[in-house]
C-alpha cells in the first residue's frame, strides 16, 4: 500500500510526457490515390469524416497498431489505415514503407511477447516471455512463470537462447537452451518446510505456427535440471502451449 502513492506520482509524471513530446518534427507524405480517407478512430468501424485529395500532403503524427494519426495542411487530424498509407509517397517520390506486421514479419522481427499455460513438474503452470532477436534465427529469451501444485507452489525465472530452424516456414521448429532459478514453496500441514531457491539449467524445443497478422501459436517442451545440495540433481519437465505476437 505504501508504494501506491508513489505509483500515482509516477503515472502523473508520465501523463505529462506526451505533451512535451509533441514539438517534434513529423514525416510528411503525399497522397497519390484519388483521395485519402480519415477516420475518427483507430479502427475500421470508426466513420470516415474527412478526405485528403490527391497530391496534397499530410503529416504523420504517430502510429497505433495498423493505423496512422495524420494531420492535413488545414490542421484536421484523423486516422488513416495502413493499407491506404502504403499508397502514399515521400517528398522525393519514393514509396512510404513501414513495418507491416505480416508473414514476412514473422520470419524476421525484433521483439516477441507471449503467454503460456501448461504443466511444470506435474503442477499447473502459467508463464509469460519476452524475446529479442539478433537475426531471423537466434534470439535471447526471458521467461517468468508460476506453478501451482498440490504440494508445492513456486516461481521460475529462465533466461536462454532460442534457435529457430526454418524461420521462413509457417510451422517452424526451434530449440532452446538456458539457465534459471526456481523458487519452491512447499505446502505442508504437519511440518513447515522452508522455502528454497535453486538454480536450474534447461534444454528444450518446440514449434511455432504463424496464425495471422502479428500473432503466432507456440508449443514447447523443456527439461529442467534442478541443482540441489543432495547427491542427485532433480529433474522437472515443462510442457506448455500458448500464443505470442511479434513487433
Amino acid at each position: 500500500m505504501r508504494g501506491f502513492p508513489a505509483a500515482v506520482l509516477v503515472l502523473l509524471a508520465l501523463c505529462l510526457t506526451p505533451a512535451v513530446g509533441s514539438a517534434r518534427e513529423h514525416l510528411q507524405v503525399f497522397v497519390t490515390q484519388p483521395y485519402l480517407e480519415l477516420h475518427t478512430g483507430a479502427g475500421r468501424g470508426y466513420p470516415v469524416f474527412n478526405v485528403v485529395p490527391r497530391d496534397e500532403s499530410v503529416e504523420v503524427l504517430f502510429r497505433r497498431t495498423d493505423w496512422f494519426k495524420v494531420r492535413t495542411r488545414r490542421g484536421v487530424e484523423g486516422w488513416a489505415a495502413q493499407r491506404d498509407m502504403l499508397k502514399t509517397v515521400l517528398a522525393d517520390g519514393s514509396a512510404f514503407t513501414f513495418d507491416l506486421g505480416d508473414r514476412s514479419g514473422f520470419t524476421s522481427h525484433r521483439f516477441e511477447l507471449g503467454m503460456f499455460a501448461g504443466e511444470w513438474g506435474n503442477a499447473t503452470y502459467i508463464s509469460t516471455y519476452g524475446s529479442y532477436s539478433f537475426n531471423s534465427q537466434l534470439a535471447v529469451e526471458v521467461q517468468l512463470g508460476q506453478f501451482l501444485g498440490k504440494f508445492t507452489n513456486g516461481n521460475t525465472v529462465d533466461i536462454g537462447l532460442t534457435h529457430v530452424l526454418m524461420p521462413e516456414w509457417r510451422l517452424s521448429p526451434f530449440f532452446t537452451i538456458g539457465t534459471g532459478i526456481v523458487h519452491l514453496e512447499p505446502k505442508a500441514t504437519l511440518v513447515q518446510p522452508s522455502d528454497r531457491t535453486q538454480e536450474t539449467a534447461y534444454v528444450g524445443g518446440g514449434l511455432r505456427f504463424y496464425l495471422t497478422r502479428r500473432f503466432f501459436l507456440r508449443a514447447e517442451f523443456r527439461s529442467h535440471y534442478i541443482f540441489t545440495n543432495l547427491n542427485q540433481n532433480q529433474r522437472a519437465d515443462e510442457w506448455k502451449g500458448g500464443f505470442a505476437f511479434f513487433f
Partner: protein
Amino acid sequence: MERWIRVLLLTVAVATLSGCATVSNWFHHRREAREERAQAREDAKRSDQSPDDDSAPPRVVDPAVERRKITVPRIRSSNIEIGLDYGALSIEDFGTNPVYGITAAYHVTEDFFFQGEWGRSKAGRTSFETLGGNIQLLTPAERHFTYYDLSLGYNFLPGEAFLGRGVALSSAFYILGGIGSTDFAGDKKFTVNFGAGYRVLPSDWLAVHITVQDRVFQSDLLGTTKLTNNIEMRIGSTVFF
C-alpha cells in the same frame, strides 16, 4: 563443479547456435563472392580498353552536384497502455470490498490486445464468523486477496461518445479472458478470468475504462471443494505510450 560444466555447456551452445545461424548464408555468401569476382574482372577489362577508346563521347556536364541525404523522421508507435484502477471486488463468502490495481496492455492489432493486471483487496468476514462470535477463519494477513493475470482482449462495437454538441470521444467495448493466480487465505490458486469492459478516449493518449471481470478459482476453505466466483467491477484510467 556443476556451475563450471554449465558455463562450459552454455558457451558451447552459444557458439554453436550463432554458428548455425550463419549456415544458411554460407552458400549465399559464396555466390555473392563469385559475382563480385566476375564484376571485378569485367571492370578491369573495361578500364584497360578505355584509354584507346576514342569513340566514347566527351562529357558535356560534369555532375558535381552532391546528392542530398534526406533523413526521414521516425514514426512514434503508441501501442502500450499503462494505468491504475480502483473498484469493488466481491470475494465469494467474504463480502464485497474495495480493490485497487495496475493494468498494462499492448495493442497488437486494432482488434486484439494483450493485457496484464495486478490487484489487491482485503476480504471481510464470512457470515459464519459474524454469527459465531469470536471465531476467526483467517488471520489478518491471510485476508489479503492479491491477484495477477494475463489476458487477451478483443475490441468490438467501436463508436463515439458525445459530450454536448462539440465533443466526440472515440470509444469501444471489449471482452477479456485469461489466466493467472490468486493469493488468498494462505494459498495460491490457479485462476481463470473473463469479463468485459468499456473504454472511452478523452484524448489520443488518455483512456478511461470501466471493467467487470469474474475471477474463478477452486477453493476448499469452507470444508468442501468448490469453484468460487469473485466478481470485480472497477474504473480506471490509462495512458498510451
